[in-house]
């Protein structure tokens, strides 16, 4: 009963979200002529400010959060909260950024904003020591667990080559808007982890992905559920020993942020920022070839903001 209910709901939400994505910018142009940007960008890259300032500027140049979150909608914000480490270790998304995103969602009239991750270390410790639980709650979000299988429900991945189905957290399936907030960092298995890799935190059985060609599974999953917005946190960047890192010495300060609705483009730009060519990161290349999005940054309208 319940399962059927939210599938129905998620399909409705998907259609609605799709419509917004397609026409939202235009609708918004007419609705809010004052806040409308002069140009419509595919991707925004910001550099040189604090995480919350960079987000404000970045999202404004995409027409503001109102373009993505409508009054009375439910929003799920998915940062990386995978590890029991402190914010300066940059193994998790910057808590200040999460706080600001949640605030903006409420400013846009969101009914509820949920925050969760399927963590790798003990989840309560990850939530508290990352600083994200407090930051999100301070902004009014509901911080929700993701550590038991009962939260996850099976979804078919029709276009998947290796990944044919996945159990996905119910909040992803139920919520109207899905905002993906990965942190850019090095990764022992995937090379570099950004937006698409962050989606491993919304599924239950990650072991299957690891056994069955990690890169292909990451790209396969991206064919299924596209986040409505990807906000890549590159304020502090773990350059080696990722994804957990050993100490602060693994981290450099880049003070950057990348925002895009195209998950492949966001990852391609972030990979370049990290110092990797997108075509050398297999899952980005695979996703590009499967038409999930584009890694060809020259074909995109990019707004580059230096503070």
């Amino acid at each position, binding site marked *: 009963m319940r399962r059927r209910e939210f599938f129905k709901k998620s399909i409705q939400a998907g259609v609605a979200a799709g419509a917004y994505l397609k026409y939202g910018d235009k609708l918004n142009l007419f609705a809010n002529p004052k806040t409308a940007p002069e140009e419509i960008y595919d991707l925004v890259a910001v550099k040189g400010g604090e995480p919350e300032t960079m987000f404000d500027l970045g999202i404004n140049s995409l027409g503001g959060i109102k373009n993505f979150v409508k009054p009375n909608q439910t929003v799920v914000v998915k940062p990386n909260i995978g590890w029991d480490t402190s914010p300066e270790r940059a193994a998790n998304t910057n808590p200040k950024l999460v706080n600001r995103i949640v605030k903006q969602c409420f400013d846009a009239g969101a009914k509820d904003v949920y925050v969760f991750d399927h963590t790798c270390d*003990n989840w309560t410790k990850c939530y508290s020591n990352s600083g994200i639980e407090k930051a999100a709650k301070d902004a009014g979000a509901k911080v929700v667990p993701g550590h038991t299988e009962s*939260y996850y429900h099976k979804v078919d991945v029709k276009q998947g080559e290796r990944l044919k189905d996945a159990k996905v957290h119910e909040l992803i399936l139920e919520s109207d808007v899905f905002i993906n907030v990965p942190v850019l960092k090095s990764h022992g298995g995937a090379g570099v982890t950004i937006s698409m890799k962050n989606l491993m935190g919304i599924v239950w059985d990650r072991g299957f992905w690891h056994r069955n060609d990690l890169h292909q599974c990451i790209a396969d999953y991206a064919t299924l559920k596209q986040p409505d917005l990807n906000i890549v946190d590159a304020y502090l960047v773990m350059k080696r020993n990722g994804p957990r890192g050993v100490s602060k010495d693994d981290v450099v300060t880049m003070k950057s942020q990348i925002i895009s609705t195209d998950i492949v483009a966001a990852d391609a730009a972030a990979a370049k920022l990290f110092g990797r060519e997108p075509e050398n990161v297999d899952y980005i290349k695979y996703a590009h070839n499967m038409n999930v999005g584009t890694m060809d940054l020259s074909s995109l309208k990019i707004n580059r903001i230096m503070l």
Partner: protein
Amino acid sequence: MKKIRVIISLVFFLSIIILYLDLSFSLQQEYSVYPLFLQFIPSFLKFISIGTIAGIGFIIVMLLTFLFGRAYCSSICPLGTFQDIATYLRMKKKRIKFLYREEHKKTRYGFLAAAVILFIFGISFGLNILDPYSNFGRIISNLLRPATIGINNSIAFALESINIYSIYPLEFKGINIAGFIFSFLFLGLILWMSIKHGRLYCNSVCPVGTLLGFISKYSLFTIKISDINCSGCGACGKVCKSSCIDTEDEIIDYSRCVLCFNCFTVCPSSGLEYKFRYSRDMKTVIEPVNINKRNFLIQSAVWFTGGSLALKAQEKILVYKENKIPETREYAVSPPGSLSIENFTDHCTACHLCVAACPTQVLQPSFLEYGLLGILQPRMDYIKSFCNYDCTACTDVCPSGAILPQNGETKKLIQLGKASFIKDNCIVYSQGTDCGACAEHCPTKAVRMVLDPQVNKNAPLIDEEICVGCGACEFACPTIPYKAIYVKSNPVHLAAKLPKQEALEQPDPEEEFPF
């Protein structure tokens, strides 16, 4: 008197239950010392293990007993209180009479002697199996805690369906079969004993009860039957859970009296008094010395010890699995702060408080991993979970000194075992695809992904020096049915080096975007 006893006993009883059931993991580390300091066997083992005042609880208990009698058994021991509650509920339903019975002297001293002799031979099995506190702990940890988690999770799921996520379900790694069966059987036994025969366990099996009973024969304060006031009605004898009041001869067996004061509440004529032993109007048990008894004691102890030693001889077990390349696990992994398997198994009473306090549930009661005599003593189970690098919960709660206290920094230098790699089981080599789950989880990067030019992929490389043996790599390794990386236990813990590295060069903040 009875009221005071009941209040004190409930304070100990409930605080211990709360410690074991604390689902938020917030109380155990800080508060466990208070109700557990006086638990006799853990305290005794702690004293032997570390020899400081942190372990003198059992001496205080012995002094208390010498002063007042077996107050421990009716107020401090949680199993004693548990039996009293069972008896009380039974009496409410249907009154039963406890009548005076002869002491099971052979049995009780036999158990005590066996436990002591085994312990002298370095085997704490006897103490663990009989210790009342640990048995109680096992019941709570293996039976009540899972039930509590079940209730909590049902509530959480019910709330979740109306989008309330404030109560969350607890991860539960499954019932531990050995722990469950043993605790369940013991629970049945203790309930039967307490409902039918009152304090039979305490006065015929429990080694603490027997030892304190021996001391309390000479205690300075005792319950006395007053020559003047006693009307000889026999009411006291019928409520005595210890069956230790011989109302015909008006004699109390102090070795079995647990100071519950139930007799006081039923005496119609103030015929009972609690007072200094050497004041006059006194009747004591005259004890005949029996040579046969002594022989029995020696025999039973020798038999028990011999059998146990034979079992200990075969304790080194190898786990062979019918796989292409099975893991070879020579020893179980003992928890951080336990120094060595030997030290751990010698001092652990298997009370399972650490099991209840472990936030990742990597600590699980063992079955035969430490050998038959180490049954139920907790081990690190890396199939179920892994040890959190920054956590010291088990070291903070252990009441018996089997796991010594650590701070965050000392714990990081303990090497429980070393990661060991089975190349042919690894995804990178068997599938030819990237994986890296092991290196991902490693907190020290003792497991790193390094380019192997032969397969042109990054493959795990182990640096044993900085490995702490936390089991994160083993837990995360996705290969089935057997692991490609696993922790080989150090039977004696070694020192791990801290990972060393230099800071990275910071990028130029003025640099343009590379796209």
